């Protein structure tokens, strides 16, 4: 098997008493579009900055293409970074910004001009080549920042919250843009985000972080469908959690219903995504049904979210597409709610 493009081994960072990143392992294969996803303060940016060379690790090792780069400064790492806020040079125009790294690398000016022109085309800002940075919109600056890093042909492109500064519409179009760039160039991208939608939309691998730890690494499908714990389940998408116990291959929910599930005896959490729940489930084998009270209904355009209170005391949320014209429930009404077996994901707590 090929060695991975990037490998972090027991990499950690502490600032005095404060631990930003606990010793962790991370592997990025060549060609990956990998997301580090986590809430703010989880250490994801520190991790990315360690990989870029801007933060010296407290311990551990970092390898790029099998070479130990742990102590290599950013100016000599085969990675390039797109910074949050971009860090473009306002005293240079677009062309000079993009060509700056090549000029430092003493690339001949004919070759440099060719590669800069190629980048201008790739990120579709050719007509802006001679503008100064302050004359550009946020989305245009984002493109310049991307071009400035990509023109260096980095072995791995690092992106720190690349789309956070853009408004919703622009973010969606830049997401498509990033996917296209990744496909066209065939490079390896590693980006940090707190937005699970962005991570799902862009990445083919996601590492979910919390409190300086990587909670789970895997494909978007794996982390979404088989979350390693309740944090991952609720951070990626929305999910209901039901407490229960498994005894002799059968789980009994605290809320009442029971179903067969193989595993060792002990307490479990059963996770069911909002979109996999339904109102008025068919009362038949293969379906779990509970009694709940409606507390609120929120219409969100593409779907309607029902907020319920289970008879066992826990909150339950149900997401149904559009508006169900047959369902005319008002807050306070009693309703049966449930899911078809197979849609749940069981976490062993012990």
């Amino acid at each position: 098997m090929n060695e991975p493009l990037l490998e972090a081994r027991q990499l950690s960072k502490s600032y005095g008493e404060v631990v930003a990143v606990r010793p962790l392992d991370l592997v990025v294969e060549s060609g990956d579009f990998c997301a580090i996803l986590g809430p703010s303060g989880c250490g994801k940016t520190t991790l990315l900055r360690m990989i870029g060379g801007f933060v010296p690790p407290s311990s551990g090792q970092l390898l790029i293409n099998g070479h130990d780069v742990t102590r290599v400064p950013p100016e000599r790492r085969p990675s390039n970074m797109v910074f949050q806020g971009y860090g473009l040079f306002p005293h240079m125009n677009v062309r000079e910004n993009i060509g700056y790294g090549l000029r430092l690398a003493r690339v001949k000016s004919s070759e440099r001009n060719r590669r800069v022109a190629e980048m201008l085309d790739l990120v579709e800002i050719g007509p802006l080549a001679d503008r100064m940075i302050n004359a550009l919109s946020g989305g245009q600056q984002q493109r310049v920042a991307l071009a400035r890093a990509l023109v260096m042909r980095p072995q791995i492109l690092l992106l720190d919250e690349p789309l956070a500064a853009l408004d919703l519409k622009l973010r969606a179009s830049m997401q498509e843009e990033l996917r296209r760039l990744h496909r066209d160039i065939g490079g390896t991208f590693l980006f940090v985000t707190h937005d699970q939608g962005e991570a799902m939309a862009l990445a083919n691998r996601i590492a979910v972080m919390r409190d300086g730890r990587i909670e789970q690494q895997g494909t978007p499908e794996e982390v979404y469908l088989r979350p390693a714990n309740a944090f991952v389940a609720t951070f990626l998408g929305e999910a209901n959690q039901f407490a229960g116990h498994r005894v002799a291959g059968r789980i009994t929910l605290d809320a009442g219903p029971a179903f067969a599930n193989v595993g060792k005896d002990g307490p479990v959490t059963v996770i069911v995504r909002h979109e996999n729940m339904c109102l008025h489930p068919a009362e038949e084998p293969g379906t779990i049904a509970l009694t709940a009270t409606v507390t609120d209904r929120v219409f969100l355009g593409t779907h309607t979210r029902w907020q319920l209170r289970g008879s066992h005391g826990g909150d339950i949320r149900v997401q149904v597409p559009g508006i169900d014209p047959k369902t005319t429930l008002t807050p306070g009404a009693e309703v049966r709610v449930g899911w078809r077996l197979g849609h749940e994901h069981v976490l062993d707590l012990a």
Partner: protein
Amino acid sequence: MKAERGNLLLVLPALATFAALFACPFLYFFAISFFSMKSYRMNFTPTLANYLHILENNAGTLAFTLALAAVIASLATVLGLIYAYAMRFRFQRQAEALLLIAVLTLFGGYLMKIYAWKTILGTQGVLNLGLVGLGLTDQPLAVLLYSPAAVAITLVNFLLPMAILPIYSSLRGIPDIEIEAARDLGASPLQQLRDVILPRAAPGLISAFALCFLISAGDYVTPALVGGTTTTMGSLIAPQFGSFFNWPLGAAMSFVMLTLGVAAIFSCTAAVRLAGQLLR
């Protein structure tokens, strides 16, 4: 309309002070620079005699004064840049303390610094005693004091905080990520300085240089006290308003200095801009 009148009211005190204390005397001295003195009385026949006199007799002193001021301003700007750079990029945590130290020296009066340097540089001064004590020279060096170098040292010491402040404020305007971006693209510390820090600090550097240049070009106290036979335009102008009682000539000298000084700063700024363009 109302707002505009309010705005006018806001600037009026400053404008009135400026007109009374600067613009009026300025115009007055400009006018009398074209007159002459005859037996301690002003002769109101317009003449260029004062300017011709300066051209014939003081061209050397003028050039020397501007050159000395340029050297002093350059030294103060470079030292100010080093200090401000250290504050901004090397000792961020101590920056406030370092800034306070720089500003505190401004409180230590101008004359006090001159006398301090007199005692340091004099034949009985600390420096000479040290040199003799170490056996580096047989007898105290008289040239340390009463030389253009002594003027330069004293003025650089006095001007340093005024160079540090504008440079530091422009360095503070450079976000860290711009420097990190330069590093990421392969810039060595020297290249970061050349390509990012200096171009971004240019406005601060230019104002530091201009301030130091104008102050040292116009100074006449320092040369008189530590300069020995060093003659600057300032030391020629001052007595025209005192012992020689020739205000028209003094005024003409002042306007020549002012014009050349401002011209020097403008050409300097232009040169910096041009150099910046060519370096790209």
